[in-house]
């Protein structure tokens, strides 16, 4: 059972639709007991960092996610990925979950529009169980902030006037800056691999 963590924000149903489509047993829940019982966790998110962390706190989910993080695979998506880091500078400095060392900062790509919207190619950086060796894999991004972290935590970058961490990993903690649930077959494959961990 994969639990999609519901803290009142995010594109829960897109993620659920994708999991249903690939035949993964799943439920949307904000119940700490269900989160503890889950085989895998997905932390979605769309919106602003401080609001999302506040909602997570308000739902009493911060500590249970931190506690469960090392025990089972966890995937953060988009803002959910950014929340895995130590802190973010979006609208002032806010603490994140601290599951991957690093911070989240406003992107400053030279001469390119912000937000970074669209399909960008994954540039693999070491091995990761969620990725294949294939080249030319495009996934869908929509974001203005990006992770700043050591290369050892980055499984794939994409090039947007700067190297943007696209897929990050620290042990069983994974984060997709892109939306696997909106990235066509490549995205569904990434979700399939995560759900077979």
């Amino acid at each position, binding site marked *: 059972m994969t639990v999609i963590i519901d803290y009142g924000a995010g594109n829960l149903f897109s993620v659920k*639709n994708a999991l249903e489509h690939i035949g993964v047993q799943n439920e949307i829940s904000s119940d700490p007991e269900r989160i503890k019982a889950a085989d895998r966790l997905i932390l979605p998110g*769309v*919106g602003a960092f401080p609001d999302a962390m506040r909602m997570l706190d308000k739902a009493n989910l911060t500590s249970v996610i931190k506690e469960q993080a090392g025990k089972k695979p966890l995937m953060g998506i988009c803002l959910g990925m950014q929340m895995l880091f130590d802190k973010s500078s979006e609208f002032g400095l806010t603490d994140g979950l601290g599951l991957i060392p690093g911070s989240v900062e406003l992107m400053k790509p030279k001469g390119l529009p912000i*937000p970074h*919207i669209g399909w960008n190619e994954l540039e693999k950086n070491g091995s990761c169980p969620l990725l294949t060796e294939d080249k030319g894999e495009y996934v*869908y991004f929509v974001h203005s902030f990006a992770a700043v972290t050591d290369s050892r935590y980055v499984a794939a970058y*994409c*090039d*947007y006037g700067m190297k943007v961490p696209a897929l990050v990993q620290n042990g069983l903690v994974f984060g997709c800056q892109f939306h696997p649930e*909106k990235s066509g077959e490549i995205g569904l494959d990434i979700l399939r691999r995560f759900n077979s961990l």
Partner: protein
Amino acid sequence: MLAKRIIPCLDVRDGKVVKGVNFKGIKEVGDPVECACEYNAQGADEIVFYDITASHEGRGVILDVVRETAKKVFVPLTVGGGIKTVDDMRNALRAGADKISVNSQAVQNPQLIKDGADIFGSQCICVGIDTKKAPDGSWTVFINGGRIDMHLDLIEWVKTVERLGAGEICLNSMDTDGVRGGFDIPMLKAVVQAVNIPVIASGGAGQLGDFADAFIKTDCSAALAASLFHFKELTVKQVKDDCRSKGIPVR
């Protein structure tokens, strides 16, 4: 490197695709969910549903279309047409839309852009603009499907929508729309230069090379077309193959 996007648009009225689509196995009056699946199979980077339902009662149907499509198609979906309030936006997003496109309503009530961006994020808010060249060489913004000239300067308006928090602009040139002679290159250039958010070219695609032409001559991020794909004159795949052969990054 970021790929240039090819976006088919489906004009939907009362839950049916309006233009006489005739995809294999699909009825004359197209089923938008099936059309969206077909475009997805062709490699569409996003799909836009433009609701032209006239009656208020018929409005809910587009949400069913989005809901069904979102279970089968895993690329971004945009809903436009008749979005007047933040609640309209919320309903469309809840149904499975990833972005909202606002046009006339944004001109009449610019605060709608800001409210939408504040609540749902800039990435959700695409501002569609119908525009046409004025006698003095500038461009002005029209509303109500191009029927009313607001005498609002295009460049001023695009800067305003960016400032209000729009994440993207879909620029429809009424001068080239329907003429099929290619996208409006001078207008696109002027808008791309004026703002730092992605710009989608719309209106004028008539031939295979028109898409690559827009990407080569301007820094637009995406190109949108409706009838060309509806009538199956071109597939999304053909357009992408052409772009790829000219060195343009596509998915």
